[in-house]
């Protein structure tokens, strides 16, 4: 491991000041991803600013929604009574991720900022535009069975690995950010980026900006929700494809729907057109199939991930069936 400095921040502004001034500095919270990346030499920050003691771990009800502090632990959020009552989809997605040990360390902000698990990103002997811009993409012509079917570019076909973020993008969450220029709010769907020509940037956070909280507006999706994660082991594995589904059903007619795919793109993949295709339709498998067809428009496979073109719609249909029956 490279030598690095470690400082502990007591106030958010102090943490932001350090990281904004020093491009080699990084925030560290649970460290479940960053420490691994440092051990392997994929990331080599010169300075770590420990934000664990900042008062950003609260989960609170507001007049029109839930506010979850960026430092709330994944396990705390998943087991929180308010979250389970108001946003059960989020709890399902969180519990599908990682292992209990990791969920006990990982924070909400850190979960959003975890890096791709593309093996070319991790292998220092391989080219990777995300790790080292300009070196090329090893996955494009390499082993790409875990990779994107939506929104990829010629510089990067990696996927975002988070489960939690798939639920948050479906639930119209907002990200609260503090930075050197003050505070700002960002729709969750605008937080993560597509690779384009700058795959080294996973999100739209600017230098020194710190996620302080996530807000989720109250909604009617408290019953018919499901998070379907398809993976190669029953636990402790990243998704091949996942689907977050929230339905508002009245008299077997779908009044509203929120849908998103995970592990199919460089960002959690909201399915707005498929949602619209469901509105006013009966909650039947035929409607779900039609929505899944809409969801798959524009999908493009690479050499080893063509299975996702079938797996993704089937996963969505399965999730919709489970959610509607809940």
């Amino acid at each position, binding site marked *: *491991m*490279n030598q690095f400095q470690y400082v502990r921040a007591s106030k958010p502004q102090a943490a932001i000041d350090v990281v904004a001034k020093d491009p080699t500095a990084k925030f560290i919270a649970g460290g479940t991803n960053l420490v691994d990346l440092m051990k392997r*030499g994929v990331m080599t920050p010169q300075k770590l600013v420990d934000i664990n003691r900042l008062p950003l771990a609260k989960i609170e009800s507001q007049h029109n929604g839930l506010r979850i502090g960026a430092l709330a632990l994944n396990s705390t959020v998943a087991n929180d009574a308010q979250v389970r009552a108001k946003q059960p989809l989020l709890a399902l997605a969180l519990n599908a991720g990682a292992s209990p040990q990791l969920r006990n360390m990982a924070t909400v902000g850190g979960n959003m900022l975890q890096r791709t698990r593309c093996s070319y990103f991790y292998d*220092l*002997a391989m080219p990777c535009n995300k790790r080292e811009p300009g070196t090329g993409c090893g996955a494009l012509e390499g082993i790409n069975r875990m990779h994107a079917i939506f929104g990829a570019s010629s510089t990067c076909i990696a996927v975002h690995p988070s489960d939690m973020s798939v639920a948050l993008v479906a639930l119209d969450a907002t990200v609260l950010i503090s930075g050197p220029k003050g505070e700002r709010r960002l729709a969750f769907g605008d937080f993560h980026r597509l690779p384009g020509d700058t795959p080294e940037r996973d999100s739209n956070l600017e230098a020194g900006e710190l996620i302080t909280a996530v807000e989720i507006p109250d909604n009617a999706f408290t019953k018919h929700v499901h998070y379907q994660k398809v993976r190669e082991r029953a636990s402790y594995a990243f998704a091949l494809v996942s689907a977050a589904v929230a339905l508002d059903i009245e008299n077997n007619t779908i009044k509203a729907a929120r849908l998103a795919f995970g592990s199919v793109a460089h960002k959690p993949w909201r399915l707005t057109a498929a949602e619209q295709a469901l509105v006013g339709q009966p909650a039947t498998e035929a409607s779900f199939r039609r929505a899944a067809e809409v969801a798959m428009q524009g999908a493009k496979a690479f050499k080893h991930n063509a299975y996702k073109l079938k797996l993704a719609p089937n996963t969505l249909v399965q999730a919709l069936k489970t959610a509607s029956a809940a």
Partner: protein
Amino acid sequence: MKTQDKHIGGSMSRVDGYLKVTGGARYSAEYELPGMTYGVLVGSTIAKGRITSIDTKAAERAPGVLAVITHLNSPKVPGFKPTGKDPSQPQTVGGPLKVFHDEKVLFNDQPIALVVADTFERARHAARLIKAQYAKETHQTDLEASATQAFLPTQAKKNPKSPMADYQRGQADAYKSASLKIEQEYVIPNEMHSPMEMQSITAHWEAPDRLTLYDKTQGTMGTRRDFAKEWNLPEENVKVIATFVGGAFGNALHSWPHESAAVIGAKVVNRPLKLMLTREQMFTMVGYRPYTWQKVGMSATPDGKITAISHDSIGQTSTYEEFTESTLAQTRMMYTSPNLTTRYRLAALDVSTPIWMRGPGEATGAFALESAMDEMAHLLKLDPLEFRLRNYTDQDPEKNRPWSTKFLKECYQLGADRIGWKNRKLEPGAVREGDWLLGYGMGVGTFGAHRGSAHVSAQLLPNGHVVLQCATTDIGPGTGTAMTQIAADTLGIDPSHITF
């Protein structure tokens, strides 16, 4: 003696159970020696070619680094030679990788440098600072693409009676002219052992001609012979300690490049050196079940008597070492086919050498043969178990001699009763349980009951206790417990008074 058996076959707590569940059992990476140094291997990033330059300056200057060893400065190892007829070693031609011997790269992640430092972390950091340049050559790692260049193993060329040689009884490929026949291809990919315990070794030159290894190995004597030979030492000057093995499944039956590298490194710094592979390195340099392509052709009479079997196999090996295994042995002895052909070939790829993996070649071959039996039974519309019974053989049809014992019919019956075989439908996919298709299947596996001699010393102490000693290791099945049971029954002494 039999009637006095009390402990053999009986229930007894494992003698090392307490140590294992309390963390007291020491595995190869857990030995600490005064002055210990730590080694980390740097692997090649190409699969074939030559190292044209290797920059070790930054690594040498890094804190705590004691030595950086490459092919440019490695001490001469007296005996990088093929291993002999040791039964614990694969019957190979060529030999294990001669680590740091020259500039050639023969497989991806081949060790090209060893960094030795005073702590593991410092060694790992310095290892990342090493930069190699290569003259890359086109590699071939695809077995099916190189199937046309597959060759008869050298041992079969030298000896037509070798089990790896082509075998023929009756007519060659007689199934081809039959009317009821099947022909199917079967492929097994590379399979990695991935035991919980990563391979690790501590090498300690206790004197210039005396070497002690705390090593993960399934055969202490084989490892001792290998390193005595490698360093031209009398065998009694090499001591191998491997009390416990945390899973191996075959991949600690051979001496691997990291072991040679650790011994070289310990020689250079003249201190004990510990080297543990990373999980990634477990996939590139300590063996795996070889990718194997097989084709089985079979014909039978309408009443289910096999008339001919042809079984071809191409197994993967490396370019520097011929690894062979008994993929086709079961086919030659299992059923009474009057016409039978087996052909075993190897394809040398730009990969590290494979090794036996639990139920080694026998399992690979049984998968193809028994799948083909099912295909044939399906074609004949015959119950697969009945089909096997109609071709049952009461003697070894390869060697034409009776079995010592064979209880396969009884085994069939017991299995059929236990799983409710009688409920099986002849048509596949006919039984459902909810969303799931339910299938009844069967297959036969065989493995030779090999026997060898071993030496054990027993010491009777004045207090009535017995100490047993043997150069062995416990790979998990409970060697210490079994030896204690044998001694207890043989000597009539309570197991609590016996230490193995």
